[in-house]
């Protein structure tokens, strides 16, 4: 048994690189400011969460550093030595000490709870009555946004005026999803036969991405979206554009595209006001005005649109929109038509 103590020196040397790696990992964490970060809040709801995140994070780091330091000190300090007596004092326990270290974490957790509970109730209170209502419907694998008060239905892009509370009713058309725009607030699951609610007040103009956070099948990874926070004036203009009737091309490739759309399977699933009434897929009345296609996996460019129309399941695995084996001419015409629907 004595020989084993040689390993203590090895362990001591090896602990340092581990500590260095951990420190490097912590420092590397300073850079978590990607476009979908959870730590750069853009609404009061996200601010409240940020407060609790900071509280729990620093509490955890503080407790963690102290306890790990004690652990490492004990491990290094009490390694066996050749000069040790045969066996160390056989300490079986110390009730006051044990009571103290039961109470300390309990008190720390009570502090966390003290700050947590009011924020739970605050953030889950009913939304203000004058909030902008948005109905969110999760589909495999795209997002539908309806503005009941404004008569607008769109997909994958939710527009909000800055400084005005937006209240979401979350519903599902098929399976569970989770509606998550990290910079604007926490996620809320979207559950069939339930109406979940979420509200926030965006504080900054800008576009921020989000995506489905509850595994929902093959293309869960591709169920993305963007939130566009605009000035009130820009938002009003967007509303007016969305409420306008769709473009009705009278000639050229776009008109051919409309003809292709009208005689193809497209109309079974998609709505273009005045042209078709399908509700399985996204409403395309103003698809040309959007920034993204196919729930955010493609840009709304003619090239991407053509790629999508040629082979939807090739772009988005499992896509419920089948490959219609459209000819190049039909695709080009459709692209011209759809891109004209500003």
């Amino acid at each position, binding site marked *: 048994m004595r020989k*084993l103590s040689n390993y203590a020196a*090895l*362990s001591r040397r090896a602990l340092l690189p*581990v500590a260095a*790696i*951990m420190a490097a990992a912590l420092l*590397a964490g300073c850079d*978590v400011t*990607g*476009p979908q970060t*959870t730590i750069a809040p853009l609404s009061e709801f996200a601010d409240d*969460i940020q407060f*609790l995140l900071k509280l*729990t994070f620093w509490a*955890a780091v503080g407790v*963690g550093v102290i306890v790990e330091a004690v652990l490492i000190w*004990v*491990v290094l300090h*009490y*390694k*066996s*030595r050749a000069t040790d*007596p*045969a*066996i*160390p*004092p056989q*300490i079986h*326990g110390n009730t006051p000490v*044990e009571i103290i270290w*039961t109470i300390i*974490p309990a008190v720390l*957790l009570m502090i*966390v*709870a003290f700050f*947590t509970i009011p*924020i*739970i109730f605050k953030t889950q209170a009913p939304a203000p009555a004058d909030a902008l209502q948005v109905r969110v419907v999760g589909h495999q694998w795209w997002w539908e946004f309806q503005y009941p008060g404004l008569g607008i239905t769109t997909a994958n892009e939710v527009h909000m005026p800055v400084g005005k509370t937006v209240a979401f009713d*979350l519903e599902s058309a098929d*399976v*569970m999803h*989770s509606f998550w725009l*990290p910079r604007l*607030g*926490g*996620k*809320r699951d979207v*559950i*069939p036969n*339930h109406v979940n*609610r979420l509200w926030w007040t965006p504080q900054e103009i800008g576009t921020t991405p989000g*995506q489905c*956070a509850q*595994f929902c*099948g*093959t293309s*869960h*990874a*591709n169920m993305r979206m963007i939130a566009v926070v605009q000035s009130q004036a820009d938002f009003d203009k967007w509303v007016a554009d969305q409420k306008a009737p769709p473009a009705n091309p009278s000639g050229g490739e776009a008109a051919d595209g409309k003809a292709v759309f009208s005689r193809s399977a497209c109309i079974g699933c998609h709505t273009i006001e005045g042209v078709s009434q399908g509700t399985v897929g996204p409403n395309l009345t103003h698809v040309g005005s959007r920034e993204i296609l196919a729930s955010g996996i493609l840009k709304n460019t003619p090239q991407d649109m053509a790629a999508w129309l040629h082979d939807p399941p090739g772009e988005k*695995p499992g896509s419920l929109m089948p490959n219609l084996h459209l000819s190049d001419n039909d695709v080009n015409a459709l692209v011209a038509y759809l891109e004209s629907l500003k």
Partner: protein
Amino acid sequence: MATLVRPMPRAAASTLPRPSGDTGIWSWITTIDHKRIGILYGATAFLLFLVGGIEALIMRLQLATPNGQVVDADTFNQLFTMHGTTMIFLVIMPLSVAFFNYVVPLQIGARDVAFPRMNALSYWIFLAGAIFINLGWLIGQAPDAGWFGYANLTEKPYAMGLNTDFWLLGLQILGIASILGSLNFFVTIVNLRAPGMRMMRMPVFCWMTMVTNILMLLAFPVITVALTLLLFDRFFGTHFYVPEGGGDPQLWVHLFWVFGHPEVYILILPAMGIVSQVLPTFSRKPLFGTPFVIYSGIAIAFLSFGVWAHHMFAQGLGPTADSAFALSTMAIAVPTGVKIFNWIGTMYKGHLHFTTPMLFSIGFIFLFIIGGLSGVMHASPPADLQQNNTYFIVAHFHYVLFGGAIMGLFSGIYYWYPKVIGRVMDETLGKWHFWLNMIAMNLTFFPMHWTGLDGMPRRIYTYPEGMGWDAYNMADTIGAFLIAASVLIFIYNAVHSMRHGRVAGNDPWDGRTLEWSIPSPPPHYNFVEIPTVHAMDDWWHTKYGAAGHEGATAPIPAPPAMAGGSVDVHEHGHEEHHEVHIHMPDPSYFPIVVAIGMFIAALGMITNFWVCLPGVLIMMAGIYAWSFEPVNAPAPPGSAEVHHAPTTPTPQTPVAAH
């Protein structure tokens, strides 16, 4: 004492010849020896650990870079589902059960578990379930709805393939194995403890085993019900979770986590028990505050049934429910913290020997602290709304389950390997394994905290460029392959040490508990004489006498010879044997017959219902024959073939058997 009954006088019930022999494949198939079953559990679970690990490596290759092209979406979804399902149900649980099997009877001074044949049945059913749930790979339809398989994604028409059927039937089979096992170990611990081993003298590993098995006994019926409802939905058109039929998918979520959260503790408590044995041994001190550790284990178990909705903070249960479950979740952190402090207290003022098992136990504490604290972070429901279903959660539970459970189980493997094999694993390779594993583990899982906070959801098979996740993901992938390398070191060590390791002797670690008082590997019947227990860590007290008590630092007296330690035992001795018989139950064919029948019946469920018929008939035949099978084959009067007799009775031997 079921294991010690005499041969039945009337033995006409069974006309089949009983299996016999101590070597060869049939001796393993028919074994009902808890040690062999433990080895079977351990070997099977370790093979499945490699399977689950390979699944993880493929996923890490796919995610190493944005827009990865290694596997397609459906394959990735099968990989993460099977990785989770495998690691939880087919690796950590059965590896823990391997330790229950091998160690618990030795630690409580028993010759076997209470129901040895049922123990074999548990193993064979577990193996049947493990094979069944992996069959989907053969036809490209492995389960693909995540390890918690949220309805209604598991319902038709969203899950038309056999994927979910393999999953739900496989889990049902595994659940039967778990419930049988939990009954067995509970009864074993309650009834088969050696004389004098009061509950509070029982080793903490046995305590944690008992708590774990109570949890299994109470939690598995819940998942059984949940799966049965899903089975009815899928096979018979009911609507328990089908919203179109008035069902509620959220019912599944509740039922799953009422099971699922206790399950988390089913995974971690055995490892905590192992650590609670290893730390005192290599600190050469008793476990600090043993009653506190035991009571906190019980408190964790009790509270674990009241925290399930913390998996559901994003489900919109309302502020009152969220608050209640936040409080209960924070409460469960307290007994968990107490255990950590007690383990550190155990090492305080000890003489620490940094053997490989000790290093893994210290690593367990180091990593479990991190996993526990990140867990407290998402006990705050609003904060959890940003963490739920992200890589932050993935980081958290890998710190708890890999850093915790797997490190603890490795500690146990290094610790008890000498008892099982008779040789000690190579310490140098063991330390290479430990340090590489430790560094690789942190390299893999620590960056996941940051990807999670940076908004990366879990269970995505791809992610675009420009999200800021690339470097972290590459680090995760490199780390994962380093973990694999460390596991290769372990495998080499385990295989090499079987022949070349240092001979262990009875007590290579100067251990504290009864298993170290008998030879390594132990004889079939474990103890020649059932020991009488006078204290917690009785073997330590036997060796050190009064010095082993509070505050003493007396020199080491020479350990006395223990029963079984040096006694020459002939397994099939025909020598005169002073009426000293140790009756052990005979091997049996029927456990594997029942398991095969169950497997065929399950296959019938997904192929043709008529196939269920032979399956059920085989199962019934097996159960029927088993019911009339005597514990021991009838032996001719006077024959000692099935008995194990010491040639010389040990001096103080009032033998338990007769």
